[in-house]
């Protein structure tokens, strides 16, 4: 074991310690202390992650084995971490963005009572711990521990203000939808255990194991794992929890529901890339589901008025993009977009938080407008984030989106066309949001206007750092056509995807074609951007009741209502039916019926013991006669 690996365990343990300190000391710690402890442990993990990242870059990838988690003859599961380019990159994103969001939270949550403040930080630390387990785990079980752990933290943090029934409903919904996905994940793991007797990545992805799995096995396992991914990463059909999850505090939305947890599904599939590349059917399903989600969510985002809801649907849509990338075998592209998305979406959420903070809790964009002149830092950083997500060069989103679109085109031009269509919608709704929030005249109340202010440094500094990353973060993946020896990210991640790359057929695009595709998508998005900018900088509140297609979009295609009718209601009726009819009438009826029958029988038999000698003699004679008859005939 090389030296650096001896400290790897500290990376997840430090946040766990933070969780314990803040959790146990929530009644005594002051806000300053709990905020400091909560952020400091993440910062320490971040420093360690940088160290690990550098070591991995120098070629030290290893599995660190700690102890046997479960050890029985037919199944051995080790508590082990896998440190390789993929996990070390995610470590940086989680702890880096995580740290900024912790710092931001110290200011954003400052009005909470100190007990709740500590509780908040302890949950946030617990989340980081779980997320780190998820990406560091060297087998599917350790990954699953983190997988469910992040779901739990998400539940706890969405329902952070637990007195509000809507919020706890949203938390519950998130947990249950995630559990549906988790069942798929678990079934895939059981499938692997029954076929291979192991859950360890290295063993499963070895040639020997892969040969043991039939095509049906691979397809089944990957599809079930993908069910897990649809839950965690909010894809059709399990995406409806994510917009509701916006009930949680805004930094939570930034960290959990944009930058890290929701990308767990992408991480898991990227980790299992070899299984997926060998299951073409699953690849198609992943690509089409991803693309469909991207389009659906983007259409919904066009008509939302809640600033966080727009960002939430935008997240769902961007995650769809990443799944499209996975589905067409562009694993590096997917991971690249995870990274750039973490930067600009965290930035956008935190910016939105800064706006909400200034607006005194207002989230409806119809009541905003003209914030540009009150909050210059928030405005500028937010604009950079919007440009990045809209895919304008040379901002980070451009490079990652372009890589995905190019790969999609190589696979099937229709995928590319739909992808560009989504990108156009993205540019439109983001600049609709930008225009409605920052441009034009202020539409809120006078009191709100009076309170408008730029946020304190603890909020603006993370914004600035993230804005810088959102601008330059894409440069590690500059395509070859712009710079010789570019695409450092692909080279870095190459060991992880080597097996898949050997199998996958690469359709290389000619340079001229690549330029053309890029030009089309950027131009189309730019037109949408300008159009939205013009239209919504003059936005006026109007009371018109929308009809037709607009109404359909405003109501999110009525998916919620549909789910309610086909799932929630039947479950409740079935529960009532089992309880009132089967349990009380049928089963207990039978049981009590038996009791009644015995009672009835004994009442009848009682007449035999009447105490009258005559009756006894009569019975005796009948008995003897019966015996005689039996004797005669047998």
């Amino acid at each position, binding site marked *: 074991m090389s030296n650096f690996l001896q400290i790897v365990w500290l990376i997840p343990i430090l946040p766990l310690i933070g969780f314990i300190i803040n959790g146990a000391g929530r009644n005594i710690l002051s806000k300053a202390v709990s905020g400091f402890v909560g952020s400091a442990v993440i910062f320490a993990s971040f420093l360690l992650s940088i160290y690990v990242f550098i070591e991995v870059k120098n070629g030290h990838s290893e599995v660190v084995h700690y102890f046997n988690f479960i050890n029985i003859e037919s199944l051995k599961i080790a508590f082990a971490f896998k440190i390789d380019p993929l996990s070390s990159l995610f470590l940086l994103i989680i702890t880096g963005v995580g740290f900024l969001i912790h710092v931001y939270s110290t200011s954003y949550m400052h009005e909470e009572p100190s007990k709740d403040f500590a509780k908040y930080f302890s949950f946030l630390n617990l989340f980081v711990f779980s997320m780190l387990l998820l990406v560091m785990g060297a087998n599917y079980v350790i990954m699953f521990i983190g997988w469910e752990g992040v779901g739990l933290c998400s539940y706890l943090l969405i329902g952070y203000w637990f007195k509000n029934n809507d919020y706890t409903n949203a938390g519950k919904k998130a947990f249950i939808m995630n559990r549906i996905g988790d069942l798929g994940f678990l079934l895939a793991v*059981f499938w692997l255990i029954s076929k291979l007797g192991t859950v360890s990545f290295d063993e499963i992805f070895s040639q020997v194991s892969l040969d043991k799995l039939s095509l049906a096995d691979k397809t089944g396992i990957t599809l079930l794992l993908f069910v897990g991914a649809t839950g965690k990463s909010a894809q059709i059909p399990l995406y409806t929890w994510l917009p509701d999850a916006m009930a949680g505090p805004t930094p939570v939305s930034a960290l959990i529901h944009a930058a890290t947890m929701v990308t767990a599904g992408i991480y898991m599939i990227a980790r299992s890339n070899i299984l997926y590349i060998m299951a073409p059917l699953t690849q198609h399903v992943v690509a089409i589901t991803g693309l469909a989600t991207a389009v659906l969510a983007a259409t919904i985002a066009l008509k939302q008025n809640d600033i966080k809801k727009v960002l939430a649907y935008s997240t769902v849509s961007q995650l769809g993009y990443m799944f499209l990338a996975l589905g067409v075998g562009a694993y590096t592209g997917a991971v690249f977009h995870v990274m750039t998305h973490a930067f600009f979406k965290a930035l956008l959420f935190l910016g939105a938080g800064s706006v909400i903070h200034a607006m005194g809790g207002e989230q409806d964009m119809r009541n905003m407008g003209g914030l540009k002149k009150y909050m210059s830092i928030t405005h500028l950083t937010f604009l950079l984030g919007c440009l990045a997500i809209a895919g304008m060069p040379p901002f980070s989103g451009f490079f990652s989106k372009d890589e995905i679109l190019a790969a999609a085109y190589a696979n099937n031009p229709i995928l590319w066309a739909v992808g560009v269509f989504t990108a156009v919608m993205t540019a439109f709704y983001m600049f609709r949001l930008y225009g409605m929030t920052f441009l034009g005249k202020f539409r809120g109340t006078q009191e709100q206007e009076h309170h408008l202010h730029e946020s304190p440094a603890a909020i603006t500094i993370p914004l600035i750092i993230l804005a810088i990353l959102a601008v330059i973060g894409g440069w590690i993946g500059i395509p070859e056509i712009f710079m010789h020896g570019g695409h450092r990210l692909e080279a870095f991640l190459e060991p992880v995807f080597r097996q898949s790359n050997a199998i996958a057929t690469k359709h290389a695009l000619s340079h001229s074609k690549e330029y053309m595709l890029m030009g089309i998508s950027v131009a189309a998005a730019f037109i949408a951007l300008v159009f939205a900018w013009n239209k919504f900088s003059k936005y006026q509140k109007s009371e018109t009741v929308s009809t037709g297609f607009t109404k359909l979009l405003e109501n999110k295609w009525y998916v919620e209502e549909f789910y309610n009718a086909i799932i929630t209601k039947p479950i409740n009726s079935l529960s009532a039916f089992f309880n009132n009819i089967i349990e009380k009438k049928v089963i207990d009826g039978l049981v009590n019926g038996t009791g009644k029958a015995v009672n009835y029988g004994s009442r009848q038999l009682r007449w035999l013991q009447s105490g009258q000698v005559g009756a006894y003699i009569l019975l005796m004679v009948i008995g003897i006669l019966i015996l005689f008859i039996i004797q005669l005939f047998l």
Partner: protein
Amino acid sequence: MGSYITFPELLIWLPLLAGIICFFTKGDRAARSMALLFSLIILGVSVASLFYTDTKFVNFNAVNYYYPNNLGNTFFVGLDGTGRLLTFLTALAFPIIFIATYKSNYKNAASFFGLMMLTQSGLMGVFCSMDALLFYFFWELALIPVYFLCSKWGGEKRIQATFKFFVYTFAGSLLMLIGIIYVYQHTPDRTFEDGTIAAHSFAISSFYNAALSGTEQNWLFWLFFVAFAIKMPIFPFHTWQPDTYDQSPTSVTMVLSGIMVKMGLFAVIRWLIPLFPLATVKFSHVVMILSIIGIIYASFIAILQDNLKKLVAYSSIAHIGLMCAALFAMNQLSVQGVMIQMFNHGINIIGLWIVIDLLEKQTGVKQISKLGGVASKAPVLTIMLVIIALANIALPLTNAFIGEFLMFSGLYKFNIWYTAVAGIGIILAAIYTLNMIQKVFYGNTNSITESVKDISWNEKLILGFIVCLIFVIGVYPQPLIDITKESVTILLSKK
């Protein structure tokens, strides 16, 4: 006959002795302290027994008293891995129960604690018996004190509930008795040290070797199985359970749900499968389908259940259903999962009852719809409950995850579709558990929950202990797995 006292003897006689002493103790406090003291000593004995597992200590673990007779029965008790695990659970559960309910006042406490200790003695006997007649004796001995406990110290509808409970389980026991006698008549003869020859034998080894044809096994299987299925309980023999849990005094409910339901599973492991291996294989699908129906059925009922106690009862039926299904899958993963889960389920459900008891005592209600907002009044209680409830739905790093994971993996090897359907139970469990947490603990306080106070030292101590146990087993389950490793291998060799 051993010249020293063995572990199983201590585990049976000490509670019996304690029970008798409690009966004759004057004063409620004295009886309570006496019971607690004895239960702690018994726990000490049980912990010690976990360390004397080597074959060189075999004399500590088994003893065989012989009374000259022609029946072929002896007082034969012993501890194997399974027995060790369940006696440990029993020994651990009683002090937990006594401490958690330390402040409860019982009318006529001397008899109450006396009966409790008698129950423990009976339970220990069930888990240690290596003789069929003795097993039957203890099986009934464990039932009778519970009957009195429920009918004397229970809730308003206790008579009705306990009558149902008693008739149900007693009917089952009688079926088993018929079965035992039938098998007994097919055992070989037995010669004792003093030359007495009995025509047949009740010894477990003789029972295992009884000459039974396939057809005989088939109907005998059901005689035994129904008795055990009622105890567990398995759908559709379960309707006694929600009423009994609801109406019994909480400490008795803890014994019932934490330990007594394990008697059914234990009996399947110790007697049913080894006695009727052919029938086990033949009927495994029937049993598993019943169990899985039970999982889904009970989980659905739990979703709209308003009575907190019945909710836990139905949740328990679902969990036991999974254990029973996994047991009949008969492979190493599933059976090992059942072993560890028997222990975990016992710990977790006792934890749940402790919380529910606290709430009911403070508010006087057990309807979920009447509660709400407890979290803001009693944060520590809430944290404890949330952890235990999450363990109950098998979140990773809690103890129940290990058990459920192993059981499901084993079940999957046996049949994919059973696993998929049973897996729906995982989702339903999340629904009813989170519903309950939300309605009872979250939201705003109302007139009923306004006066709720947070937990006091004894409850904190016990719930804290349970929570620690949940995490320790959840993170490092290997020691618990190792206790029953050998028993699992032996059981599977019987197949």
